[in-house]
């Protein structure tokens, strides 16, 4: 019985909507765009936040990264003055951190030198990372062949290196790099291992607005890891820059110290202690502390704001669609006044009339919702393909969009339906 009434109501609604095909389809269009923009916007927002989250997570949530930052210039030098500026993190900083902070599990010093690496006649620009064997613990790199640096390499300052996948592919192409020698600044280093794709060493910059000293990433294709002791004796800590007539020299011992603490809860307190320790050791503000966990929280915050903004834009378009529907339904109701009168005269209750018009509105929004979902799942693909932006369609957003379109149908359909039901049957019957 109920099923029959449902079927009858749907049939009737479909017939009435079919009678005004153009009007119905234009009305549906409003909902289609609304729903489709909700899904597309949520997908773009979700994609952006996942990307940010992934890259931050790669930095390690239990890590604290201290980076060397070029301190602001005290005074502008003029003439042909040659001077050496000493700044940045030092080996003794790393030592102090390891010795004073008990929450620190590992402290990994990192030197980064931009150099050309050669093999046979090939040459590529790389970042040479001077570091220690336990670098593995604070990084997301994975050994895919051979081994990482060892304590023996470190102790004896051996000329060995580990290359990452990109370097292996570009420099050695078809050869198996392990056991081969790569030449950097006149010295040969034997390749003992290959790591997976490196985390972009510039990653942290994207989340900070302060100026960073690290050289621009131009042409650097990947990382080569060497023991830090080896790096210390083979690569100069000085770097020279020509600017006009003056020749500036800089001396930086370490570019980074990466610290890992025992648990997520210890990250922030450790950061504070670290800050006070370093501020005592450093006169100049030549370092900065990056906390991935904090970035993660900031990203979550940004993501929420982003979603709210995108969501409200989409909601407005849905609202416009809903108002369009209400407008059309009001017009339909007044156009069908006589029909309402007839139905009332032959026994329709107010409730029957409400159901009739509400179901018509719901059918419009449901069809609009479904088309919107189809279109809305399609658009993010286009955005990803042409706009090179990651998008993620979550099932929640589909359910949400569908729910919203139904909700719109009920909310904006109820008033016209009630208006229809409350018409005086006698007046409606006389209506021309």
């Amino acid at each position: 019985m109920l099923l029959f009434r449902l079927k009858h109501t749907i049939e009737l609604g479909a017939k009435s909507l079919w009678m005004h095909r153009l009007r119905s389809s234009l009305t549906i269009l409003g909902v289609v765009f609304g729903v489709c923009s909700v899904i597309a916007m949520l997908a773009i927002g979700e994609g952006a936040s996942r990307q940010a989250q992934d890259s931050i997570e790669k930095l390690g949530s239990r890590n604290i990264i201290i980076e060397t930052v070029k301190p602001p210039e005290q005074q502008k030098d003029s003439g042909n003055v040659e001077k050496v500026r000493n700044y940045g993190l030092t080996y003794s900083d790393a030592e102090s951190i390891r010795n004073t902070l008990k929450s620190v599990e590992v402290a990994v010093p990192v030197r980064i030198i931009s150099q050309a690496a050669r093999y046979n006649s090939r040459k590529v620009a790389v970042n040479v990372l001077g570091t220690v064997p336990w670098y593995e613990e604070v990084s997301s790199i994975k050994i895919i062949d051979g081994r990482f640096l060892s304590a023996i390499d470190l102790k004896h300052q051996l000329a060995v290196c580990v290359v990452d996948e990109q370097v292996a592919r570009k420099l050695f192409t078809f050869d198996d790099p392990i056991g081969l020698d790569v030449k950097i600044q006149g010295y040969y280093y034997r390749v003992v291992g290959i790591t997976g794709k490196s985390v972009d060493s510039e990653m942290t910059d994207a989340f900070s607005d302060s100026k960073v000293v690290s050289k621009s990433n131009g042409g650097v294709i990947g990382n080569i890891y060497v023991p830090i002791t080896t790096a210390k004796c083979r690569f100069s800590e000085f770097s020279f820059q020509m600017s006009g007539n003056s020749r500036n020299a800089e001396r930086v011992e370490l570019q980074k110290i990466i610290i890992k603490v025992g648990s997520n809860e210890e990250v922030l307190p450790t950061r504070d202690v670290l800050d006070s320790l370093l501020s005592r050791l450093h006169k100049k503000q030549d370092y900065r502390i990056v906390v991935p966990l904090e970035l993660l929280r900031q990203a979550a915050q940004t993501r929420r704001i982003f979603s709210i903004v995108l969501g409200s834009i989409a909601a407005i378009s849905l609202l416009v669609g809903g108002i369009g529907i209400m407008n059309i339904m009001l017009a339909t109701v007044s156009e069908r006044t006589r029909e309402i009168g007839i139905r009332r005269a032959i026994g329709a209750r107010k409730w029957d009339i409400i159901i009739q018009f509400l179901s018509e509105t719901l059918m419009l929004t449901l069809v609009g919702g479904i088309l919107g979902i189809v279109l809305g799942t399609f658009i993010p693909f286009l955005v990803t393909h042409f706009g090179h932006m990651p998008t993620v369609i979550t099932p929640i957003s589909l359910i949400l969009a569908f729910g919203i379109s139904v909700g719109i149908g009920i909310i904006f359909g109820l008033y016209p339906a009630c208006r229809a039901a409350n018409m005086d049957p006698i007046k409606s019957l006389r209506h021309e």
Partner: protein
Amino acid sequence: MSVVNTKKLCKAYQLGSFNLSVLCDIDLEIEQGQYVAIMGPSGSGKSTLLNLLGCLDKPSSGKYFLDGKDVSSLDDNELSLIRGNRIGFIFQSYNLINQLNVIENIELPMYYQGMSESKSAARARELAAKVGLGDRVKHRPFELSGGQQQRVAIARAIANDPVIILADEPTGNLDSASGADILSILDDLHQQGKTLIVVTHDEEIASRTQRIIHLLDGRIEREIHNGN
């Protein structure tokens, strides 16, 4: 037993501070199976009386017993129910629903009474055949002539086997030939024992009935009982 029984039925409209009385102290009794015409000049209250008898309107005062039941104090839902299963309407302008075909139009009152689909479809088919439209069940109202439309309307009016059938100028929009068809169908209904109340200007229609009630200025002026 009287099907329609009204006691001092009044209808007045409040227009600002002015109280416009349209119908006043109507005492009317109509027996089961009677064929009654209501006549009177424009503005005499014919339509208002018909609306009251059809439970489309509520009286300002007085009582109305339909089939022994007091309907003057029922709420909207109950009145809708009464209209659906006790009363059949036939209008001057047919008042069919355009997006529905003949069968669906006839089915509609049964649908609102909650009758099952198979039963109502069978009954609608039977009624369509009865009014001579058995071969046009799939036609939509605008594909039919005026006379055919009115026949569909009659079929719809008797679908729920009502106790009274109210007709408001049923031949007013028709040529004389189709009008005669309609009137003979009404005569048939009367023969089958239905109670018919017809509002009309047409003396010829009135002469077919058993009883003519003349209204003037909201009151029953006189009643004529035809011999037949």
